[in-house]
């Protein structure tokens, strides 16, 4: 099976092409093309995953581009991480395809939506089986385009247009880091192949400074894609896209690509303490930074978006603390429960036609399936014992502790507290209490929307059990199996105190949210009151966007106008000079054409004299 794993990304590509060409005629039947072809990918991915359990890594490549004697290759690789990612991506994509059939029903550009989904899925699957950095970069950019197209799906809305543009440019800033890092690494190691890069690093062929430099440059790419501070601002805005897209791209798969990239290149990062520390610090800071913004947002999707940014920071923290397994494990569980939360949020929006949680409330009784499913997702992300998020978060906390950064560990704990708090704030405000908005026609979503949620709900509960300190660390052992560079970054046995601490902060967060938003025995206005400075700063997201507007954007514009000044006056002046000279010569020439034979004769004679002199002086041609 593995030798044909290249087929997995091709199914969705086929879907993209079919729908691009025939979508107009297929109309809403387009969804079947998309669903069936991603199902094919999913089935194949599962088969490959199972085969990879028992067989070694499969890798193949062929020449893609020849430059002189250098052969740049393309190909694919099925190692543990890739096989796992194939499964996660194709599963979530399949579920989102199914869900969208209900969610997008009646949309004028229904086939286009499915075509874009196919393109994105193709790129994402291609990304996770790339065996070299160049190919990774290629698909890395292509997933960006898929994301861009889907964020801007409602192209007639100015917000969607702005969000799509912002997402593309912000991530491209990061991509340039990756681009430079990749090229520098190539000239150091003479290869883009992961295996050869690792071998060169292992053999000490690359200087420590270069490892740190290239690793951090590559990490900048991950910062852009995974919405880490300071390139995070595009991700919340990306919520302008249809909600299934947010679930697929901006929660489960693409935004996790940055984490995946760091994981895939882990042996490189692990060779530089500075690089690892950078990742850990950025991750921890992003985790708490985004969580604090999430505390006050009132748009259901934006709360989830900030929560995604925060959770991605968590994963980065794990990787930066040398917790390879912890990072990948949380990537997987997060993919399930966050996709679930987004799809459930979509179901809520589908029912009440608003995204503002101030206008919701009391939906628990009306959305009999969505409510409990949302609760499962909320419990999982809050780290309540027994659910998947609990185990993976615990693994991260252990890694942060063992990594020797007590401050980062405390930040992670604080972020866990905030996460539990704002997620239950969200839950209580949406599902409990009195209905605050117009909720006359509220009804549960159709089956093709609820079934994917149910499946994700099950996974959000059980997915953690593949790697627990109680029942065995199967996932962790498998992920690092046979990989020398990863041996010391597998599952780490931590003190039970860490687990207890995690549980306590999570329950405390939930309890506080309960007091404030359900029981209402605590006044909520200390956090949501108007006029409060902290609250103003948080609702304005620390003014990062405004800061960029005033600095980077303003500078770019100013510099452009400065150049225009040069173009008009300096270069324009040059043009005037040139044309002036030509015109002057022309005028002089026409004055010579006076018709006076004497003048002509004089000119001819002088010319001849000059030639003779030149000839006499040089003795012939120019020497």
């Amino acid at each position, binding site marked *: 099976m593995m030798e044909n794993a290249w087929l997995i990304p091709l199914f969705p590509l086929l879907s993209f092409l079919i729908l691009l060409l025939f979508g107009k005629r297929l109309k809403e039947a387009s969804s079947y093309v998309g669903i069936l072809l991603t199902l094919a990918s999913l089935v194949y991915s599962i088969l490959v995953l199972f085969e990879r359990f028992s067989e070694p890594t499969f890798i193949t490549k062929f020449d893609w581009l020849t430059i*002189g004697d250098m052969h740049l290759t393309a190909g694919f690789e099925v190692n543990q991480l890739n096989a796992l990612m194939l499964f996660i991506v194709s599963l979530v994509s399949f579920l989102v395809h199914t869900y969208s059939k209900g969610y997008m029903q009646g949309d004028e550009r229904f086939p286009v939506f499915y075509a874009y989904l196919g393109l994105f899925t193709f790129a994402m699957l291609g990304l996770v089986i790339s065996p070299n950095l160049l190919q990774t970069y290629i698909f890395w950019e292509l997933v960006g385009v898929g994301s861009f197209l889907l964020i801007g799906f409602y*192209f007639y809305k100015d917000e969607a247009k702005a969000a799509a543009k912002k997402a593309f440019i912000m991530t491209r800033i990061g*991509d340039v880091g990756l681009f430079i890092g990749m090229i520098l690494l190539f000239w150091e190691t003479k290869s883009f192949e992961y295996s050869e890069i690792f071998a060169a690093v292992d053999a000490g062929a690359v200087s420590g400074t270069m490892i740190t430099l290239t690793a951090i440059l590559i990490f900048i790419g991950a910062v852009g894609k995974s919405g880490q501070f300071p390139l995070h601002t595009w991700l919340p805005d990306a919520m302008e896209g249809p909600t299934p897209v947010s679930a697929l791209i901006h929660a489960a798969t693409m935004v996790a690509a940055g984490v995946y990239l760091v994981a895939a290149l882990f042996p490189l990062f692990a060779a530089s303490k500075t690089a690892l520390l950078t990742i850990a610090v950025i991750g921890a800071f992003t985790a708490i930074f985004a969580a604090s913004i999430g505390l006050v947002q009132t748009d259901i999707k934006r709360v989830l978006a900030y929560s995604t940014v925060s959770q991605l920071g968590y994963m980065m923290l794990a990787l930066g603390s040398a917790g390879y397994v912890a990072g990948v494990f949380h990537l997987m569980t997060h993919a399930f429960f966050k996709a679930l939360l987004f799809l459930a949020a979509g179901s809520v929006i589908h029912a009440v036609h608003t995204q503002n949680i101030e206008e919701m409330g009391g939906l628990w009784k009306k959305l009999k399936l969505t409510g409990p499913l949302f609760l499962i997702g909320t419990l999982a992300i809050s780290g309540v014992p027994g659910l998947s998020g609990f185990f993976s978060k615990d693994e991260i906390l252990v890694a942060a502790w063992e990594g020797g950064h007590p401050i980062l560990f405390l930040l992670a704990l604080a972020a866990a507290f905030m996460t539990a708090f704002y997620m239950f704030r969200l839950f209580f405000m949406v599902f409990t209490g009195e209905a605050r908005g117009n909720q006359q026609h509220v009804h549960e979503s159709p089956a093709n929307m609820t079934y994917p949620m149910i499946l994700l709900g099950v996974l959000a509960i059980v997915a953690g059990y593949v790697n627990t300190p109680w029942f065995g660390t199967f996932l962790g052992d498998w992920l690092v199996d046979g990989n020398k560079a990863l041996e010391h970054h597998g599952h780490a046995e931590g003190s039970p105190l860490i687990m207890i601490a995690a549980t306590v902060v999570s329950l405390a967060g939930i309890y506080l949210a309960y007091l404030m938003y359900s029981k209402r025995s605590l006044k909520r206005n200390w956090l949501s009151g108007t006029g409060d400075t902290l609250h103003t700063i948080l609702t304005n997201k620390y003014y990062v966007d405004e800061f960029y507007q005033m600095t980077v954007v303003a500078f770019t514009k100013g510099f452009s106008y400065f*150049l225009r000044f040069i173009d008009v006056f300096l270069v324009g002046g040059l043009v005037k000079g040139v044309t002036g000279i030509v015109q002057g010569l022309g005028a002089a020439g026409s004055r010579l054409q006076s018709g006076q034979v004497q003048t002509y004769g004089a000119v001819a004679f002088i010319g001849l004299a000059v030639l003779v002199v030149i000839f006499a002086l040089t003795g012939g041609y120019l020497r």
Partner: protein
Amino acid sequence: MNLTAVLSILVFSPLLGIAVLALMPKSAEKAIKVVGFLATLPALLLALAAYLHYQFGKDLADFSVSVPWIQFRGMAGVDEPFFSVNYELALGGFQLLLVVLTAVVATLSALAAAKFVKKEWKGYFMLFLLLEIGMLGVFTAENLILFFIFFEITLIPTFFLIGKWGYFEKEKAAYSFLIYNGLGSAVLLIVIMILFAKTGTTNIDTLVQIMADPSAPLSGDLKLGLFIALLIAFGVKLPIFPLHSWMLKVHVQAPPSVVMIHSGILLKIGAYGLIRFGMGIFPEQFKTLATLIAVLGVINLLYGAFLAFIQTDFKMVLAYSSISHMGIVLIGLAAMNEAGVQGAIFQVISHGLISALLFFLVGILYERTDTSLIENLGGMAKGMPIAAGFLLAAGMASLGLPGMSGFVSEFMAFLGLFKEMPWIAAVGTIGIIMTAAYLLRAVLGITYGKSHREFTGVLDLKGVEFVPVVVLMLLIVLIGVYPSVLSAPLKATLETIMLGIGG
């Protein structure tokens, strides 16, 4: 099989069309358009046949032709060399690609002209076919005199095509074009004449060999001077900052079908000249000035990108974008290694296809809405979804999206320069971000957002309009996905260049 006549037939085949057109009445609009289009086909078919000839493993040298043409004695005495100029055409890998590119773009431009040209079709197509002869000749000429003649042949028809069939300020644009290019070719002529006088030959390969010989009858200073003159002559064409302002006018004022040719092919003569003559004949001097050329490349790249960012007219955005993209050519060449030079050549081809596509789409847009101002447009995706989709895809190609040709060239050019001058290259990467910024600003400004009245009741792409769009897009994707279509023929060219550089 004797193939020596093939190249001559290829280059001069549009003459047949000119002859037929000359006999036709001016008013036979439809027939003129058909003949004008058909006349481009022989060259296209022969060019493709030559490509296949190569792909089937045959030697491109089969096409070389050399016959005595002009001969005269040195004037200073009997012992002076016997000057002779041969009629020499040949195809190397690089030239082959440019000939194919020219033939493809010319055919598509003829199709576009049938759509966009509204008057005096007879004159238009005759000049257009003459222009095609010039372009094909430029890329196949094997000696400098012949090259120069073809080079001049491209100037005159272009001047008239702009001046007569362009938009409001067409005359101004045409004169501006002529003055700059005229000065450029005057400089070029001086270089050629000095080379001829000093070495007694204008055959390019012979010149390359003579110049590589340390006992060449030229001093180092003279060589450097000649190289700088070449850099200026072709710098006007490429264009290199600050010699660019003429081409802005041309891009805005010339009819779309001419801009397709101009931006797609004519600008590439500058790059071709720099590579073939600059790097080929003066490798040492190129090396001396490599840092300067890299800096000029980065200036072009950033200058064009920042200015494109604030333009209000989409045509101006694309014009500055061309300047910016030609910066990539300079960047790649300045690296003087395989990756860089191959990247530069890829960029020549890639930008030819992409800009032809973009200007065709602009032509469509202008024809339907009478404007190319971004603020007047918007919401095009609603009224013209297919055209808008292609515009977006072309924009993506232009900003270097992987999977399309622009990425491969950009990547290789930077790969090359990062090896030699990492700091200059690092500054250049700002251009990658700015390219995304200005293209998305412009393209989304036109296609996304609220639908303005310009797009109500406007027709989407239809019928024959699909041909240029689809053909160009397929080629762009083909190169992006399978770059070997270009890199294989370039192998020999690259080896020769590298040998000359001594790298």
